[in-house]
């Protein structure tokens, strides 16, 4: 008897032929499972399976985070999985809630803000009630990339949750058509984005080379190992989210938004006088309003930091030369009036002290001030005529 057999760790009397057959069968089975998986493409279904809203409370904002170890959050591209982890998935479907979706970029998501300090959270803290006794409940559906097409994708997905009102915060940086598909979120969802472009006849290229179309190999288990690992990690992070309420790392110090600006008139390679309405994706806003149907959509031009430093005579901030932003504001007002949108321009709603690391990220106080403005808007919709 050999030592191996004495250890007794499952040693059986087997032959080399048996081992070769096991190896062959393992290989065949592994290949077959991968092929079947690729043909069935179960990732969308897997993404909808979630422990959030069952074992863990739903997240107050969509999953996003670069450092899961510190932020207890993760960036992923699976839209259904992102919604499945969000508190909106367990939203009360009864008539007792007046559901408000708040959509936009990182300013809505609440970069450098605690999840309880975001616009949606601050709106909820006002405990508004409609005249018919329903509680106003705002849901943070912001996502930290700047593209109104990305907003439209999220808005349409949010419609499944039967909102009563949609608040859509936008800024010029989200409008240039050339950068609409820069967002990795859209590039990694080529089918959804193409379908969106086609259905709404948006002025964007469905054959854009930035789309990352999965090959057959990418659809196998091996090819999708990263996506599957991300979904698994999102579920595991639910433990840390539940225990801490933390979903974003807020550093003690950060580089503040630029006060002194470069003497640069360029905006996305457009020079003064060269930016036209056709270069901005206003058609995407129209598509959003149309998709919402009877549900009112309020479009808000979000506050931006207005610098008083060097070169502030030609630029408002790091993002915007004055000429471009002035043109955009005028065009947005004109488009809204022409198309009958509910539109409010709040670009100057916050003092310059209430911005953090960027011209569109707010301090907790800034978020509260802006939320107060939005609350006043909402009240117009919840009061009986």
């Amino acid at each position, binding site marked *: 008897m050999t030592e191996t057999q004495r250890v007794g760790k499952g040693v059986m009397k087997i032959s080399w032929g048996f081992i070769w057959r096991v190896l062959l069968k393992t290989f065949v089975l592994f290949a077959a499972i991968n092929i079947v998986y690729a043909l069935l493409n179960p990732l969308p279904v897997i993404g909808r399976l979630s422990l959030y809203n069952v074992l863990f409370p739903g997240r107050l904002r969509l999953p996003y985070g670069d450092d899961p*170890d*510190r932020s207890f959050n993760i960036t992923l591209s699976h839209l259904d999985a992102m919604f499945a982890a969000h508190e909106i998935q367990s939203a009360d479907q009864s008539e007792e809630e007046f559901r408000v979706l708040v959509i936009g970029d990182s300013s809505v998501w609440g970069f450098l803000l605690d999840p309880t300090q975001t616009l949606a959270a601050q709106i909820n803290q006002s405990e508004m009630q409609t005249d018919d006794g329903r509680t106003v409940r705002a849901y943070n559906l912001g996502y930290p990339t700047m593209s109104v097409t990305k907003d439209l994708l999220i808005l349409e997905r949010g419609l499944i949750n039967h909102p009563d009102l949609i608040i859509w915060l936008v800024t010029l940086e989200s409008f240039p058509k050339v950068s609409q598909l820069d967002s990795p979120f859209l590039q990694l969802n080529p089918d959804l984005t193409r379908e969106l472009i086609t259905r709404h006849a948006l002025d964007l290229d469905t054959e854009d080379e930035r789309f990352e179309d999965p090959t057959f190999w990418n659809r196998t288990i091996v090819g999708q190992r990263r996506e599957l690992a991300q979904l698994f990690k999102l579920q595991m992070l639910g433990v840390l989210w539940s*225990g801490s*309420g933390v979903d974003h790392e807020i550093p003690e110090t950060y580089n503040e938004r630029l006060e002194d600006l470069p003497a640069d008139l360029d905006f996305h390679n457009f020079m003064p006088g060269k930016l036209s309405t056709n270069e901005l994706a206003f058609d995407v806003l129209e598509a959003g309003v149309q998709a919402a149907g009877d549900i009112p959509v309020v479009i808000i031009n979000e506050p931006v930091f207005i610098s008083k430093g060097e070169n502030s005579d030609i630029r408002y901030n790091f993002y915007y030369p004055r000429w471009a932003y002035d043109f955009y504001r005028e065009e947005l007002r004109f488009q809204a009036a022409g198309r009958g949108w509910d539109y409010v321009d709040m670009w100057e709603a916050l003092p310059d002290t209430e911005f953090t690391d960027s011209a569109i990220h707010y301090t907790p106080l800034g978020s509260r001030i802006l939320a107060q403005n939005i609350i006043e808007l909402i009240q117009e919709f919840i009061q009986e005529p």
Partner: protein
Amino acid sequence: MTLIHILIFSLFVSALVLTASQKWRRWSLFIISLVSVYWLQPAVSLRQFSFWFPTASIGLTVIAWLITRHRERGLSREDLAALLFTALFPLLISLSRFLPEGWQITASRPPSIYLVVIVGSILVILGFAGEWLTKWSRLLSVLLGVVVIGVFIVLKIETLSVWASSLLRGVTGQSRNLAASTDLYWLGFSYIALRLLHVLRDYQSGRLPAVSFLDFFTFVLFFPAITAGPIDRVEKFASKMQNTVAPSASEYFAGTKRIVLGVFQKFVLADGLAIIALNSTNATLTRSIPWLWVLVFSFSLRLYFDFSGYTDVAIGIGQISGIQLPENFDRPYLKTNIGTFWNSWHMTLANWFRAYVFNPLTRALRKGRLRSNPALIILIGQLVTMTLIGLWHGVTWNFALWGIWHAVGLFIHNRWAVFLNARRDRIPPAFQTSKAMRAASLILTFNFVALGWVWFALPSVQMSWETLIRMFGGYR
């Protein structure tokens, strides 16, 4: 070891099984171990130390053998060939600096061959000097032991590591201001040190058998066991090397199964649990008591699957190469008292400390003034042994407290067992062996061990203490 390392080792060893004779199998294991010392060493910030650390491991091993070898046995042709090969191998690695970037097996480009020749020559002179100083070999063995322990202490105490890193940065011409303890990441040194100390101690006590250089070297730096053990004994390992036979199909299958199981434990279970295992960030931010317990339990399981998984891979690779490494874990979290836990958790480490610390210490105490107080002897023995086991992981207050936690647990269990034994006839046998009693003991033991991990997982005593208090509802 990464998945790539494991896969390549498994394939190499499988090829070995199918092709090599007994003699060449020994040589192959020796050569793979030699190559692996360099290949497994991760990149470090200290310039060229991904070459020098492995070279130092090899140097220490060679010196230890030269000091402790049985001189009456003489140097065999095999010893000479293996020594020559070992001496030339760093030169070969150094020559790889002329290969295109990325072709080297070291994590960074090796140093100039002249430097390697100079350092190698010094080592050879030291080796010959050791040979001439035969009558001083016992003293040399003590000196080498001091050097090994000294290096170990420097590596394990952060202040000393930073100081040593700063010193070495001066030698390599790097900025001293960037010195960090992580610069001194010397792969496997904790295990190499224990193997060398075991050999030196056995040599000093006259228990060390004659071992060929090839077997000795492979014992100290055996490639599956260099990163995370297990820690074998030299006489057992050498015997396995001498009697190594090609594994049967059954043994090969069992070994492969062990590797797959280990990979699953390490890369699926442990890495999955790592996301929610207790650490300084989540310990500070978690407000909910139940979830805090979940983090602690996750850490407990993660550590077990990680370590046990690595051990399974090491034992599996050993098994398919014809070398049966000792078991290191035996379902430790299913044990019903802390004593049996320590007989089933990192067993080879516990055995090492039992053999070289606990037993000699308690033997010495029994001969002294404390001989009339066996309980105190056990307490001192356990406190010293477990504290040293704690400090082996890193010289910090937290590791020391983790060791003391277990020492106190072992002592209380020891006294409880003595108390129960004296009254065993008064306790109904059905109660002693009941499932409820067993379940309660298991839960108690597991929770005691899990709470102990709080000291182990967190970086400061205050944070650990606060976490423990919060787990029981304090510090809200």
